[in-house]
């Protein structure tokens, strides 16, 4: 068994043993446990990830175990890099170079904003990708599941997250991509939102695309 814990977070001792027991019941070499089960006395699910090419359903008769199967293509994602950063694993985990683009990031924002406006203050589960990607593009930091939880906990309400989006995203995007591509991409996006501004989400996204392109115009 391998414990990945680069940030020296406090993993509960008894959970390491339990994790080992759970992983031993999974007939796959690459599998790991991450999330609140490792750090918190109270937890909702035991998040088990299995890396496999097989489509066969894996079942373990242990309460609260939630198994997610990852394809080998998923290993390039920011999601995988985050969940595998601090975890208890059956064996050494395969590593792949991170591949993440601004277009992926915008897809996340595009989906997160309406979801946030619908969920309002029950946002904790739904903003994980938004915060993960934003923190990555902001400072190059890949938050592990524990750090991500801590970061999300700091937001008092959904409005604070919307402010975080408005304050950070235009700056991040302007720093990260070429002006010519940025203009083309965001003018197109803005066009799609324009006639849907009767919805709060698309109105917010429309304004956001304008803040981004305005920053280009202001040099």
């Amino acid at each position, binding site marked *: 068994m391998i414990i990945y814990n680069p940030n020296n977070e406090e993993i509960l001792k008894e959970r390491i043993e339990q994790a080992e027991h759970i992983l031993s019941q999974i007939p796959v070499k690459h599998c790991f446990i991450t999330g609140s089960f490792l750090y918190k006395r109270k937890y909702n699910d035991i998040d088990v990830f299995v890396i496999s090419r097989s489509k066969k359903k894996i079942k373990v008769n242990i309460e609260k175990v939630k198994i997610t199967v990852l394809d080998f293509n998923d290993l390039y994602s920011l999601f995988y890099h985050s969940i595998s950063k601090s975890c208890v694993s059956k064996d050494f985990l395969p590593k792949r170079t991170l591949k993440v683009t601004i277009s*992926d990031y915008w*897809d996340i924002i*595009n*989906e997160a*904003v*309406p*979801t946030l*406006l*619908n969920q309002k203050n029950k946002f904790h589960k739904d903003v994980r990708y938004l915060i993960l990607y934003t923190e990555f593009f902001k400072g190059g930091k890949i938050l592990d599941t524990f750090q991500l939880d801590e970061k999300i906990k700091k937001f008092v309400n959904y409005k604070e997250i919307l402010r975080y989006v408005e304050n950070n995203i235009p700056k991040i995007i302007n720093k990260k991509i070429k002006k010519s591509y940025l203009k083309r991409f965001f003018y*197109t*996006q803005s066009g*799609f*939102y324009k*006639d*849907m501004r*009767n*919805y*709060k*989400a*698309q109105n917010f996204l429309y304004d956001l695309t304008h803040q981004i392109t305005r920053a280009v115009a202001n040099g």
Partner: protein
Amino acid sequence: MVNSDDFKSKIVSLISQDYEIKFLGKNFDKIVGFLSETKAEKIYVWINDVVNEQFQPILIASKKPYKDWEVKQLLTFRYPFSINNTEYRILLVKIKNSVYIEFHLGDHKYYDKVRKELYLKK
């Protein structure tokens, strides 16, 4: 326990349009059968919010095709719920400024499949 035909009729009446919406999903009737009256009522309230533009859609700016349409022409409204620790999702698909075309109901696996088709998941 909710009857699937009654459930569909109620949704059709809430949406109130001439175009016949399609009800799709693996085990649709079975899942509706698991719904309590309270959970079904919450779904009707949600549909009402969608119809009154109080619920926010997801809009994907892509020219890729989805059946007879381009993805960018569609608005998708998502409603998650769970019954006995199993998560289910509803995806209600509407053509921009026009009619509702599909009502999907299924478990996570089905939801992921439809999400991919609608380019909500790459």
